[in-house]
């Protein structure tokens, strides 16, 4: 039981350190509260964005929390990929630079799993292989298939 746990934990932890560093240039780690008996403690996330000291999760900014969370989700995905992932507005807190890094990582990961990502941000949409538009009229939704980024820009751009 404990063996099976550590089998998973060690791989996911290794993935987390690699992915967090790739997304931020800083260092992130997963620490067990109780290494002897993992089931009696929790799983702590420690992050150190570039140039900063190791920070308490509470004090992180919205964007920093998003990156720390997404790194965990991607670390698990790399250990045991699911068939598909559905992510709704995961870029809402991200500045342009971080939104692009996350979108590029999704693009890379989407060779092994299918990603369906809802986003309002041009920088994210630009990385997608395919884009669907959703509109509604009188409260009834319609899907517009295979929109390209230029059409999307017209759709989301303000007149």
């Amino acid at each position, binding site marked *: 039981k404990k063996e*099976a746990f550590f*089998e*998973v*934990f060690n791989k*996911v932890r290794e993935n987390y350190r690699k992915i967090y560093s790739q997304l931020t240039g800083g260092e992130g780690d997963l620490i*067990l509260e109780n290494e002897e008996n993992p*089931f009696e*403690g*929790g*799983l*702590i*996330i420690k992050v150190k964005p570039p140039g900063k000291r190791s920070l308490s999760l509470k004090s*992180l900014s919205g964007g920093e*929390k*998003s990156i*720390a*969370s997404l790194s*965990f*989700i991607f670390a*698990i995905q790399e*250990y*045991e990929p*699911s*068939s*598909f992932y*559905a*992510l*709704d*507005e*995961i870029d*809402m*807190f991200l500045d342009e630079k971080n939104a692009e890094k996350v979108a590029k990582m999704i*693009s890379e990961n*989407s060779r092994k799993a*299918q*990603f*369906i*990502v*809802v*986003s*309002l941000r041009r920088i994210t949409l630009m*990385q*997608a*292989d*395919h*884009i*669907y*538009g*959703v*509109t*509604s009229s*009188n409260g*009834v*939704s319609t*899907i517009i*298939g295979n*929109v390209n980024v230029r059409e*999307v820009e017209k*759709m*989301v751009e303000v007149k």
Partner: protein
Amino acid sequence: MYLREIQIENFKSFGNRVRIPFLTGFTAITGPNGSGKSNIIDAILFVLGVRSPKMVRAERLTDLIHKGAKDANYCKVSLIFDNSSRELPVDSDEIILTRKIKKAPLPNKPDNYYSYYYINGKSASLSEFIGLLSEGNISENCIVQQGDVTAIVEMSDMQRRKIIDELA
């Protein structure tokens, strides 16, 4: 094993039968506020067997049925998976998982409804359904809902460790 298509019928803001085909790789969905993007994600969660309507922003499961010009009395969502690599133990190139909710008002229980699950069109029990999903490695862990992107960081250390427990 990828998701080939979603069919959404009378579910939330989808007033008719809408087919959304998907390709492998990275698909983005965009559009104006309130147009129905998160409702598509809710439709996926619905088929994955979500029990609590609050998870999909509804008071009761019957609130998921489209209310509009013509009020339907049922809603139905199908996820069509490609199974040509026989990743799932079903001898078929395609696996269709369908969930349906139908209003069935009773004198003492006006919000009563019936719940149906189908695998490739045949009636199935919830446990058969859930079993197939877990073999396909599909669960709610693959879905991040709007506003939940920082959930991993905001949850307790114990809850986070349990995510690893479930993988082991």
